[in-house]
């Protein structure tokens, strides 16, 4: 079986290299057959990678410990689902998943657009194939998942923290996002290589970008929930380098999704869009480098390995390629129109872009600082939470406000008079909300109060937009149907508001208390009384389990269990107890900190509105799906446009 996996990967490498070299020659010399053959090679590479992936999946499910990878990441006691999730639990498997998704995306994009965008596809194929060749080479020569050994009786097992349902879905979701950003990058590069820098590459990749962005965003929320229920420190986002690695390309892609609308409407920001699409792609690969290189300490990263240098080289090479392309095609990318007014929709998109990119670069600086300080100062200094929180407020709060102003301001130019008239409802509601919140005691946190007030502003904006639009068209469904991207976007804005409310509530207004309790003793936190009743000891197939049983009374009633798992492999994990009040969307979160004699040190956190964050994930998903739903009219326009151009 391992031989078949190895052979399939060698075939994939050969096919991607052929698609890269043959495709480049075909596109340069305009040889139709060679270009078509390169496209078919990319499709075939997906097929052979699928075979390799199937071999690894079968080995994992059957606990075939003659595979070093299966031995290192699973054990006999591991259920089928977790055994399968070990596919992305280790380095070699996750690289194979990357190649599988990349070749699949590439083949699909090439086949779907082969007739309408022939001149672009001829270049898209070699760009994607070049990137896929790199991953195939690593898998064949450096980090093969098909190394074998004398069959062992049992494996080393999967890291305990990965034995969680969220870890079954979170990594593949992120991979679909990371890898998906390759498609718009390849189309952008193809537009520059072919010299056809008109809007077709944007129309063709709009849904690819949206889908990648949706997967990356939803994947991060899944990861945040995993951290919340599994890691056991009471939070959901720690500004860890690997978490930031997913956030950075998402921020760059968010900026791109907005600025691309300006290019479509006004023919402006062509260079900026090329920079953004390249930045999003490079940050996705850089994230992979961070995860694999071991240069930065992270709870999520794989052990230090030799492939970090390969990834660094790849990031440098592709960055140089992108910069050279943009510089070469600068004359073609110059805008023919100018910004007419600083008070216009396109101007708000520009401000939004500046804040998003500033936040993205600030996070990047925070991630790189330990490496750079080690390199230049000889001591590794890390950027801690206050650094990130400060910049999140500085850039995030204006972004929230812009999310409310943008939809209500007209394209081209708006007068202050008409803007104030349009904004009178959102301004009025947010002032009333702010005063009400201060009266309710929310003034204890200024950033929290600002976030809530701005959230009220944005929510009112969305409602005003929907009401006015429905009045103008006569029907809400007709309104959404005529511009799904815009109204799907408003649903996403609603999700971001929910996220902001959840983050502000659970961080700015959280209550934390630590106390040692003996059985029968209680502590009161934010109106909740937590009573420690007894200690339970148990044993599962993989660990000895210690659980403190606690009862909750006061505003909410219930029973909680919080404790520690001591795995037979020597690992330990904290198992937190969470009670959710669905009416207030509030959690009472109990951490079993330390045992001392008959007593236990408990850390109890009451986190208001934290569940708004998880609900926001589903709203985000719904809005993204509305926005990326296929539009037959758009396809017809593309066909008609091409026919007209050909005369």
């Amino acid at each position, binding site marked *: 079986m391992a031989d078949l996996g190895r052979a399939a990967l060698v075939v994939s490498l050969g096919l991607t290299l052929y698609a890269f070299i043959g495709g480049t020659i075909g596109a340069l010399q305009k040889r139709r057959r060679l270009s078509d053959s390169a496209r078919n090679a990319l499709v075939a590479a997906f*097929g052979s990678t699928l*075979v390799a992936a199937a071999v690894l999946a079968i080995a994992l499910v059957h606990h075939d410990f003659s595979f070093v990878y299966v031995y290192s990441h699973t054990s006999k006691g591991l259920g089928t689902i977790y055994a399968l999730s070990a596919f992305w639990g280790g380095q070699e498997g996750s690289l194979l998943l990357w190649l599988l998704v990349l070749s699949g995306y590439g083949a699909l994009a090439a086949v779907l657009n082969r007739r309408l965008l022939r001149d672009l596809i001829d270049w898209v194929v070699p760009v994607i194939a070049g990137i896929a060749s790199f991953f195939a080479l690593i898998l064949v020569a450096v980090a093969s998942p098909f190394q074998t050994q004398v069959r062992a009786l049992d494996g080393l097992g999967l890291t305990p923290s990965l034995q969680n349902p969220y870890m079954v879905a979170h990594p593949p979701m992120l991979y679909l996002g990371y890898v998906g950003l390759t498609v718009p990058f390849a189309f952008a590069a193809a537009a520059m290589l072919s010299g056809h820098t008109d809007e077709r590459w944007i129309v063709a990749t709009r849904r690819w970008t949206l889908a990648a962005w949706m997967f990356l965003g939803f994947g991060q929320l899944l990861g945040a929930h995993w951290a919340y229920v599994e890691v056991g420190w009471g939070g959901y986002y720690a500004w860890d380098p690997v978490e930031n690695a997913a956030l950075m390309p998402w921020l760059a892609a968010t900026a791109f999704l907005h600025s691309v609308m300006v290019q479509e409407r006004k023919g402006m920001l062509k260079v900026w869009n090329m920079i953004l699409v390249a930045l999003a792609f490079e940050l996705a690969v850089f994230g992979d480098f961070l995860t694999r290189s071991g240069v930065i300490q992270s709870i999520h990263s794989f052990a230090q390995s030799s492939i970090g240098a390969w990834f660094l080289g790849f990031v440098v090479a592709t960055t140089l390629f992108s910069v050279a392309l943009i510089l070469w095609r600068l004359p073609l990318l110059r805008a023919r129109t100018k910004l007419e007014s600083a008070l216009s929709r396109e101007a708000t998109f520009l401000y939004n872009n500046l804040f998003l990119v500033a936040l993205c670069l600030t996070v990047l600086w925070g991630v790189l600082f330990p490496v750079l300080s080690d390199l230049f100062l000889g001591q590794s200094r890390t950027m801690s939470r206050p650094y990130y929180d400060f910049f999140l407020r500085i850039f995030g709060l204006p972004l929230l406000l812009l999310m409310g102003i943008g939809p209500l301001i007209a394209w081209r130019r708006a*007068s202050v008079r008409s803007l104030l008239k349009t904004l009178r409802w959102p301004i009025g509601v947010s002032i009333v909300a702010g005063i009400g919140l201060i009266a309710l005691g929310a003034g204890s946190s200024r950033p929290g109060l600002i976030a809530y007030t701005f959230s009220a502003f944005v929510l009112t904006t969305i409602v005003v937009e929907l009401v006015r639009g429905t009045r*103008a068209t006569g029907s809400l469904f007709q309104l959404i149907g005529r511009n799904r991207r815009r109204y799907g976007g408003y649903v996403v804005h609603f999700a971001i508001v929910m996220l902001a409310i959840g983050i502000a509530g659970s961080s700015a207004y959280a209550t934390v208390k630590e106390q040692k309790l003996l059985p029968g003793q209680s502590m009161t936190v934010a109106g909740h009384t937590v009573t420690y009743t007894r200690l339970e000891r148990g044993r599962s197939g993989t660990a000895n389990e210690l659980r403190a049983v606690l009862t909750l009374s006061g505003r909410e009633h219930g029973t909680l269990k919080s404790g520690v798992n001591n795995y037979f492999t020597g690992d330990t994990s904290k198992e937190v107890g969470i009670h959710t009040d669905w009416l207030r969307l509030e959690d009472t979160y109990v951490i079993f900190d330390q045992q001392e004699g008959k007593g236990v040190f408990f850390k109890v956190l009451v986190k208001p509105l934290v569940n708004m964050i998880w609900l926001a994930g589903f709203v985000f998903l719904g809005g993204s799906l509305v926005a990326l739903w296929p539009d037959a009219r758009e396809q017809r326009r593309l066909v008609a446009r091409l026919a007209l151009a050909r005369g």
Partner: protein
Amino acid sequence: MTALIVGALIAVAAVVLVSLPFLRSSGDDVGSSTELQDRRLMLIDERDRTIAALKELEFDHRTGKIDDTDYRALVGPLRRAAAEVLQALDAEE
């Protein structure tokens, strides 16, 4: 043995798929776009943008984002631009 046979079949299938375009009887020339087609594409882009801007302006006016004074100041130049680009497209044909 089975693995070898399956591996060989994958390789053969890949070779067949990659070779298919060379077995076709149709010509090898992609037929690069002419300067005229490129200019037309540019004009079509411009036409689509202008018409979209006009539609957006009408919608913004109906939903109250733009008052009558601003609307009158913006709609004239946009209509002229649309007419100019349509004329240029007609001239190309």
